[in-house]
């Protein structure tokens, strides 16, 4: 039998977690529910975050948009602010699972679950997100590029909760792109997922950011590719180069969903396509 604790505010939640860092936080439960159905692992005790109102919601500020950890993908996918400022995130939100999953699944859960295939994670990487973690000791701001430290390992401490994600509002003229290659149209885990942000000034890529999922043990920001592409003129040549550099930068694996060869192939083609579409 699993014990469930249901704090009604953040302070209570953090102190419960502070007392027992073994508690498993639970938001939409869409990942926890399916934790190895074969081995049928039983969770010792869960900390239900769904009643902690401070953790939920989208707030638009001057410099950044903040999204609370337990905000669902349905909320993100239908937010006018997200659509306007972060269309790549809106698109990701709308292809996670299916409608039923989006109604429950949360951004914080997607982040903490830290699957290399998590669809929102490459988007957060290219948006230069900052993750705000909270514990009884206060808040800690973690650049998102430093959050995923290894296969399913993150910079979050057991005594911390993800509180929110802060997304700096992009420079005008930035274009975002997102593409998921899944096993089917819905309820599909990504074989490859790519997020991109670019800004063209006088025919050249003044900004170019690229991240991908399902091609490495963690979602990855492909900084070397970005460095080689930034400053180049937009067009077929640059796009093809970006694709082949991206392919060379990762070492995907064979698994039950796809093959290493296909992942590399699809990554190259998608990066090329999205780069072409940045104009």
């Amino acid at each position: 039998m699993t014990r469930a604790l249901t704090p009604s505010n953040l302070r209570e939640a953090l102190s419960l977690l502070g007392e027992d860092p073994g508690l498993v936080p639970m938001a939409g439960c869409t990942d926890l529910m399916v934790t190895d159905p074969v081995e049928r692992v039983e969770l010792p005790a869960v900390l239900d975050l769904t009643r902690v109102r401070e953790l939920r919601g989208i707030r638009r500020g001057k410099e950044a948009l903040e999204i609370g950890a337990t905000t669902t993908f349905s909320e993100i996918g239908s937010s006018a602010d997200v659509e306007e400022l972060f269309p790549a995130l809106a698109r990701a939100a709308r292809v996670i699972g299916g409608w039923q999953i989006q109604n429950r699944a949360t951004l914080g859960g997607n982040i903490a679950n830290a699957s290399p295939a998590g669809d929102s994670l490459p988007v957060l990487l290219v948006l230069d997100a900052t993750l705000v973690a909270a514990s009884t000791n206060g808040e800690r701001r973690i650049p998102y590029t430093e959050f995923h430290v290894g296969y399913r390992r993150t910079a979050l401490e057991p005594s911390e909760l993800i509180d929110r994600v802060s997304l700096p509002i992009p420079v005008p003229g930035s274009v975002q792109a997102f593409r998921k290659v899944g096993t089917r149209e819905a309820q599909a885990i990504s074989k490859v997922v790519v997020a991109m942000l670019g800004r063209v000034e006088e025919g050249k890529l003044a900004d170019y950011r690229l991240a991908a999922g399902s091609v490495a043990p963690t979602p990855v920001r492909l900084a070397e590719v970005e460095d080689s592409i930034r400053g180049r003129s937009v067009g077929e040549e640059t796009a093809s180069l970006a694709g082949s550099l991206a392919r060379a930068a990762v070492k995907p694996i064979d698994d039950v969903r796809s093959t290493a060869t296909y992942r590399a192939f699809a990554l190259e083609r998608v990066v090329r396509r999205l780069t072409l579409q940045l104009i």
Partner: protein
Amino acid sequence: MLFGATVRSPIPHARIDTIRWQPEKAPAGAFCLTALDLPGPNGVLLLNDDWPILADNEVRHVGEPVALVAAASRLDARRALAAVEVEYTPLDSVLDLSEADPENPLAVIQLEHGDVERALGASDVVVEGEYRTGHQEHIYIECQAMTAWYEPDGALVVKGSMQCPYYVHKALVHALELPPERVRAEATVVGGGFGGKEDYPSLIALHAALLAKATGRPVRIAYDRHEDIVGTTKRHPSVIRHVTGIDEQGQLMAMDVDLLLDGGSYTTLTPVVLSRAALHAGGVYRCPNVRIRARALRTNTATNGAFRGFGAPEAEFAVERQMDRVARAMGLDPLEIRLRNVLEEGDELPTGQVLDDTTSARLCLEKAAALTDFRRRWSELEEERRQRADGEPMRGLGLSAFFHGAGFTGNGERRMRSPVKVALREDGRIEVFTAMIDMGQGSAVVFPQIACEAGGLTEDDLVFAEPDTARVPDSGPTVASRTTMVIGRVLAEAIAETVELVQAWWRGTKDLEEDLTVAEGAVQSPDGSSWTWREVAASYVKEKGSLEVSRRYEPPAWQQLDEETYQGVAYPTYGWGADVVEVEVDPDTLEVKAQKVTAVCEVGKAIHPTLCAGQIEGGTLQAVSWGLMEEVKMEEGRYLNDRLATYIIPTIGDSPEIEVHLLEQPYEGGPFGAKGVGELPMDGGAPAALAAVENATGIWADEIPATPERLTAWQEAGDVVESIAGEATKRSSSED
């Protein structure tokens, strides 16, 4: 009630050295049973009894049952599994057809019509192709489940999800060595079957029954999805080689087909699946010289069994793709090659059966082509492919033509002479007794409809008995597209006979001169008097006692198949179809989206057009997804994708629009002209989908599922249509 669970082999092939039950490690009161505890023969009786109830000395596939446990709850039963320690010595294993021993087959069928060697030598062009299909999971909504108990009088009852109560009954009688009247198998409402509830329920029923016998308590075993995927039967993988000889006019001269099925580890129903595969291997084409060599081989994988279509989809996938290959070689379009060769009335099948006027292959093809403007659009898309600019979506159209023998193969129906019983009840209702199961296909709707029509009754005048072997006669299994066509017909006859007897008696008692009519539940005389059916029938029972009418199916005398030579008449009639599949392929990732299927099926008579179209929609979707996405992945004989998150079936978002067109060429042997329809739509979707991918991408696809992973590999390897066209030209010119 106790709950049962199954200890399964983790190894594809091994000797069992010891099985140790350690009750101290199990929840209190748990119980364990192994092959040593069986009261009778250790075999599930189907066609053969080589399928062990529990592995004895040796396991032959991953997931094979080795021991059973029972405990007070599902969770306790699961925990008790850990208290069974099994030691194995691994043995060499055969994991797929490429490793299987052709000299030790599970079944072999050979048939030859004409002289293939000579005709190949005389052909203008010879085209060779090899085609592969993979496993398919049934993914019925309801997993396998069974409950067994002993009645106070000692009779054994097994109740659960099954298509064939009398198969289960037979297996229980055999293994528990009980007199048939001491065993009852009862089907619950069945949440989907697709063939998966044909063979396997016998095994799980035996498991539940053996635990019930050993513990003296009712025992329930219900698999979760994971166990269902790992443990139960699947569609047979196949490797099928075609060598086809064609003359200059594009007429088939010779077909040489070498067909291999992966039977898995035990016989189960494989010989009959192989037989149906062989009988459909030539497709819907006229060819004077045909040789079909079909073998089912053993591998160390779960036993493969019945799955909608029963070998025909595998065989027709290969022949349809081969026809596309022939078309490429001859420079003809896919419609033209088919129209030049399609079977018509008076043509012979490879069995020598001369086709009658219910042969509709051409009708279906022409209709499907007209509805989709196939020829023009296919050619335009060929052109579009050659001209396409980077990044434009790749669109394609594919065609297939197919048929499906209705009812049991060969002499099966003659051996069974399936009975239906009807009986008048005191309240005047007619109670109908058949062993047929509604597993979603709609026999619970169609049977009353047939009975009402045959007898002039209303549904209120009828009662259908639950399919319980203690009450219903053995009217055979709910398989082979036979329920409506075969049993529906016998039902119509039995009802008509009952109504006739009762109305004749009524006329006598009323001293009426002329015949009475029975319509819509009312008995009417020409003088205008009218009675309800039920009052008339109730008086019959009151005056004369109950009335029972039993009727048996008599297949047409001319349905005789020589089981040695495979010459004769394998099926009394065939359903016919043609599919046009339209796909869009992503130019970057080669992801395939089936957008529309136009399915034209000739079904004899659509008794219930909505349900009939529903069968065709469902079967078509199952066929297209078998062709494009469904894949059982294995490593060292273990399933890698044993859950619905990884065994990919289509969501509604993946499902194409399916436009069904029903054509009717009545078959006089079926009720009101109906032919079987359940499996027909499974035969055409996969080859048409791959043909559409070919039209869109130029990739020559000869293996299913044609996943993006495979498509990219083929593209990189240069398996494209240009290479096929070139290959055939070379061959023909070198022979000149």
